[in-house]
């Protein structure tokens, strides 16, 4: 079972944001998409979630996404946007319950409370969502997304978490918590696709990394295969050193100089 995007083209007016990108993500794995600002990472996620018009083919668990109803897709995958805004003063628990719209359970179950507990915010259940800090709001949104696909595998079919920069506004402890949640979701048979900026965290939690630059896919592979001095320096246009601590094959990246 997989989430498969083939030969995706997306244009904003005359600007081509994606020029024939393919991505094959497997259930049970965490797939990370990295690349510089404006390289098309979020656009690729947008095409895979049918949020924006695209050319190409996206299939989810072997079925084409095009033509599936929103509620059919919502039962198979949940999407965490980069930033969330809320129009009315809903409480935290109400926001998480909204995510259950097409999910497995009605709003009367305890799934929303479990989801809030998973992100460490169950004591915030009755706070006004609009009063939260950016990082707290992001964690509540993660809880909403988790509640939507609470069981990683349903009726033998894996479900998917699509995360657009899930750790961007979080402190280091909560960054690690999100990574733990994503790894756990994949370990229990679900699939995770995450757009990432932090290369070290990516190396820590991704099974597969796709590097995008200027709307094209430069490299795909395991973190060790892909996170290499020359590939990264070429992608980002600056000098980066990839090191590996003794006894641990996972690479870590040191920024070195602003020019390549």
């Amino acid at each position: 079972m997989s989430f498969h995007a083939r030969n995706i083209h997306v244009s904003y007016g005359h600007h081509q944001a994606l020029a024939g990108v393919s991505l094959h993500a497997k259930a049970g794995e965490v797939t990370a998409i990295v690349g510089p600002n404006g390289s098309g990472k979020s656009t690729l996620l947008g095409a895979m979630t049918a949020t924006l018009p695209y050319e190409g083919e996206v299939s989810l668990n072997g079925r084409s996404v095009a033509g599936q109803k929103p509620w059919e897709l919502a039962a198979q995958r949940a999407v965490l946007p980069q930033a969330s805004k809320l129009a009315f003063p809903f409480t935290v628990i109400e926001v998480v319950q909204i995510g259950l719209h097409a999910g497995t359970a009605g709003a009367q179950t305890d799934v929303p409370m479990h989801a809030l507990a998973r992100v460490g915010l169950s004591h915030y259940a009755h706070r006004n969502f609009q009063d939260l800090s950016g990082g707290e709001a992001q964690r509540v949104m993660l809880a909403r997304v988790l509640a939507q696909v609470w069981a990683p595998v349903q009726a033998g079919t894996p479900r998917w978490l699509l995360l657009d920069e899930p750790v961007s506004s979080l402190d280091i402890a909560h960054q690690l918590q999100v990574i733990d949640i994503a790894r756990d979701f994949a370990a229990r048979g679900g699939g995770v696709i995450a757009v990432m900026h932090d290369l070290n965290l990516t190396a820590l939690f991704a099974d597969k990394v796709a590097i995008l630059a200027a709307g094209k896919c430069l490299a795909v592979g395991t973190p060790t295969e892909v996170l290499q001095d020359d590939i990264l320096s070429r992608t980002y246009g600056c000098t980066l050193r990839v090191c590996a601590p003794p006894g641990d094959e996972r690479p870590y990246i040191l920024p070195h100089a602003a020019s390549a």
Partner: protein
Amino acid sequence: MVAISQTGLPPKTRYAKVRSLHWVLICALVVCAGLSLQIGATDVQFTTILFKAASGQVLSPAEQVVFFDIRLPRLVMGCLVGAALAVSGAAMQGLFRNPLADPGIVGVGAGAGLGAIVAIVLGACLPLWIQEVTGNQLVPVAAFLAGWGSTLLLYRVSTRNGRTSVATMLLAGIALGALAGAISGILVYVADDRQLRDLTFWGLGSLAGASWAKIVAAGPMIFLSIAVASYLGRGLNGLALGEATAEHIGIDVQRLKSIAILTVAGATGAAVAVSGGIGFIGIVVPHLLRLATGPDHRTLLINAALVGAILLILADVIARVVIAPAELPIGIVTAVLGAPVFLWILLKRRGLVEL
């Protein structure tokens, strides 16, 4: 993972508490309806009529006319119009994700106003068969058709490739409103004194023209719209998170928009057609309810219908008794009462006054 013993039982949410509010509001509506039937310019009393009916006495002709032809249709129409305006306001605020959106935002108000003015000023110039078909209901019919038509036009203008942009709709609505205002201005310029007076009173709104014929014409449309709108709650809740997220959690956003816009145009168009321009109900009622019970549209929409009906009935009672035997246009009452309340809410929310 955190053990569930630490999180305790799932908390009782506002939704569960608020659902019981229906019954409180229904009781309040019944009380206000009784009040509305009891009080009026003549001394016919609802209690007397109930007593006579219960003891098998025959009603006097005056009592029959006052009760069945004046007060009862007026009560029913007040309920319908108040509920329609309040539900439409709540639905539009959900759709535009803005607590200041008004039912008129989809062009109904501007279109209906223009339709009414055209009917009042140019009605006599219309072909005879149209005047025969509509009879003395030409103004409401024209207001409804023009209101509905302008919404359809706005909807077409702001829909591209099967997606409706609410931002475009808002801007195009302002343009269309200005155009309707200009055409109305021309007609006002050529109108005679009697027509000007009719125009002014239409714009202030009134339930004085309530009749069973109008209720039969507008009632089904309003009922249907409220019934449909009450099913939009979950979708509008999802929309509070933004259009993309609403789609991601399984809501057919485009279908939601179409249904919301068309039902609001139907309900508001029918309400404005039979009662003229009654302001403030569509903004104040949903706002009050959101403050009192939270923004959950699953309860907000239906409670708004009940509170809208209650408020408009009470406003109508005030409009009838305050300068009896004459009566005030109800739009004046809703604005005189609604505007200060609204300002007070706004200031209180911002912490500028301590009341």
